[in-house]
């Protein structure tokens, strides 16, 4: 199983990433990809309001290690042939791409499950922090309770550590 983990300010090309996964090895029967985008509107008080930009900070070294552990856990659980995670950092504008998860596998179920598992754990464990600029003010994004709750679907204890 080949995994690629990249944290970078630069944008990424989904078709290129898809092709890289396809070309990894023989026997690939499914490639599942997920792309996360910067939402153009976020809640502000009681209503939705347009955002100016999003800024993403991370803990270099620790983030890569945590993502690698998440990939290892997915690979232990499903039959995977390749995994790519790309997460952008720095200043992003509305509708820009933030995150890419691609999973190559023999059969579709492994790919769908692993991609969802990786995103669920990335959101709740990987050391990234988002700051939104909106209406001329910037504020740190709060964790969503729902993000932590979805971990239950994997029927694993919620880790005490990150």
């Amino acid at each position, binding site marked *: 199983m080949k995994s690629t983990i990249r944290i970078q300010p630069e944008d990424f090309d989904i078709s290129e990433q898809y092709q890289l996964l396809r070309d990894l090895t023989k026997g690939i029967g499914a490639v599942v990809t997920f792309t996360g985008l910067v939402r153009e509107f976020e809640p502000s008080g009681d209503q939705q309001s347009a955002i100016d930009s999003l800024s993403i*900070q*991370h*803990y270099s070294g*620790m983030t890569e290690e945590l993502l690698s552990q998440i990939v290892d856990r997915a690979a232990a659980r499903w039959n995977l042939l390749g995994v790519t995670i790309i997460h952008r950092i720095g200043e992003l504008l509305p509708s820009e791409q933030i995150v890419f998860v691609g999973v190559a596998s023999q059969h579709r179920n492994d790919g769908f499950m692993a991609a969802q598992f990786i*995103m669920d754990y*990335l*959101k709740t464990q*990987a050391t990234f922090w988002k700051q939104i600029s909106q209406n001329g003010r910037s504020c*740190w994004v709060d964790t969503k309770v729902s993000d932590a709750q979805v971990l239950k679907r994997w029927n694993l204890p919620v880790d005490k550590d990150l």
Partner: protein
Amino acid sequence: MVKLLFFGRLSDYANGVPSQIQASTAADIRQQLATEHPLLARQLSEPQVLVAVNKQIVDWQQALQGGDEVAFLPPVTGG
């Protein structure tokens, strides 16, 4: 001396905090900051804030050694 790092919203409260400090545990660091940086110390007391030593999540009471990198991590919000 140990190196201090503050991430996310904690970094907003860390202006003027020395980048290195003499401390026995992460809990000790929090206590030392309480006098001159009470707002930061209060943020560090939030139960969701985790501490990492040399990029591994540890208990607040773990003994620190000279040269350790101690990072304070609010709840993560990536993806």
